[in-house]
């Protein structure tokens, strides 16, 4: 195990591994980690993936990232432009394979909250809004939720507000779609009969006990749970090169 690897890079690599070759993948706003994960996947195991940028470029020759995930420079040498409404049409056709979504809260059933903390009528905290979550969570074959601060304030028994639909808030037809949650401590999925969140991989330097302690509900553990695969030096170099300004660290402050 390699504890010296920066958490962001470990997360980015784990997110990249969720993309299969020939997948069509979209990232949204405020998404340095997804942008880097998609870039790593293309340069490693998924050379034939279709990369749709939130900045609307298709398969750009991305050379660096910026504070905005919609920065038009992210479209460098793209092969085409593809608008978000077109990507959403693709999703309604079931042809958007993977989407990356953020969350302020996630619960045991995979529900996410990006709307508000506290009460709807007068929220304690007004969150920025659900963006694509309520639309894409149920209908997308694979949604990867990333969380940079794994704590029991984020991983809660039940979210204050269901923005993105977990397994207990979606129709049978959509229960087949996959949710993967990747945090700064672990890679989690719902591959068990109860569709309850379980640890699939624990990051190097972290124990299952530590992860469970920092989770606000009884987090399950997959029978075949194992350590999160560490990125190779080439991958680390690629990430460092594309994110020379350390934008990816902003979510960890």
């Amino acid at each position, binding site marked *: 195990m390699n504890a010296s690897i920066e958490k962001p890079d470990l997360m980015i690599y784990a997110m990249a591994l969720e993309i299969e070759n020939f997948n069509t993948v979209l990232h949204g706003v405020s998404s340095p980690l997804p942008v880097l994960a998609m870039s790593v996947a293309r340069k490693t195991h998924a050379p034939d993936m279709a990369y749709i940028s939130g900045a609307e470029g298709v398969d750009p020759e991305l050379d660096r990232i*910026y504070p905005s995930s919609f920065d038009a420079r992210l479209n460098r040498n793209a092969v085409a432009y593809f608008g978000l409404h077109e990507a959403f049409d693709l999703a309604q056709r079931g042809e958007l394979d993977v989407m990356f979504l953020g969350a302020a809260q996630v619960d045991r059933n995979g529900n996410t909250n990006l709307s508000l903390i506290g009460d709807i009528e007068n929220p304690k905290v007004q969150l920025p*809004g659900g963006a694509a979550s309520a639309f894409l969570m*149920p209908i997308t074959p694979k949604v990867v939720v990333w969380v940079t601060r794994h704590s029991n304030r984020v991983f809660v028994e039940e979210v204050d507000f269901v923005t993105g639909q977990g397994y207990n808030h979606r129709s049978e037809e959509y229960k087949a779609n996959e949710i993967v949650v990747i945090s700064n401590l672990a890679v989690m999925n719902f591959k068990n009969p109860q569709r309850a969140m379980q640890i699939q991989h624990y990051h190097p330097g972290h124990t299952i006990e530590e992860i469970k302690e920092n989770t606000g509900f009884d987090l399950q553990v997959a029978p075949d749970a194992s350590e999160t695969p560490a990125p190779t030096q080439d991958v680390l170099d690629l990430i460092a090169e594309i994110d020379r300004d350390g934008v990816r660290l902003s979510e960890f402050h």
Partner: protein
Amino acid sequence: MKKVLTSLEEAARLVQDGDLVTFGGATFHRAPMEFVRELVRQEKKELNLIDREPAMDFDLLIGAGCVAKVRTGMLAFEVFGMAPNFRKKSEKGEIVTKEGACQPIIAGFRAAAMGLPSLPVKGMLGSDLLTISEVVGSQTEIKDPFTGETMIAVRAIEPDIAVIHAQKADEYGNIRIEGPFYEDVIKAKAAKKVVVTVEELISNRDIRKMPEATTIPHFIVDAVVETPKGAYPCSCFNYYDAAYDHIKAYLKAAAQDQFDQYLDNNVYRRAIA
């Protein structure tokens, strides 16, 4: 073709207090910021703002007290964090904001652009956002008449006015957007009135040399204003990048209760005593 060239001041007068308003661009890119600053200078009130993923354009108007209601898919400052004025005033209950999903906003604009009262979408079911929207009356469950599939009908969103910042236009209102379009073409078709601020005017002769480059044709545009740097501090593809330092300074001012000073220096451009 009718000439539609006018001044920023005149164009901003097309916005009435209480209007449902949308802007072109997304987050820090091609937002019509100079037009937004003019709205603040003209002290518009009770505006009802709607957009998929706005940022500083909405937050500035909120901070300046021009806004009564906001509907967005997400309103934040990307990796810089929360939209300060939006967060403050919505938590104080000074502005109404409830819904927060991109697709119903995009689909609502598309319905209006297509001349339809509503448009069906997938997803949404099971989200508390749908419950809110059903109460608000912007979305409702339907069954498809052919397949019986449960769909969400999204009510058309027809803004009173859409304001877009583009790269080029001629004096008749033939608009060229370069790079990403976002929902700008859809918004132009959906809105009752359309104002376009542009980096530069080009001749109708030049427009005719490249009809495929015209993104919005003249007959849906009501006013064109030559506004160089009109998106600043947001980016305008092929002209300038986002001024991230300015945006950070904006956030700093808001965080340190110096927002009025920010307005003085950057919007009213008053000398401070």
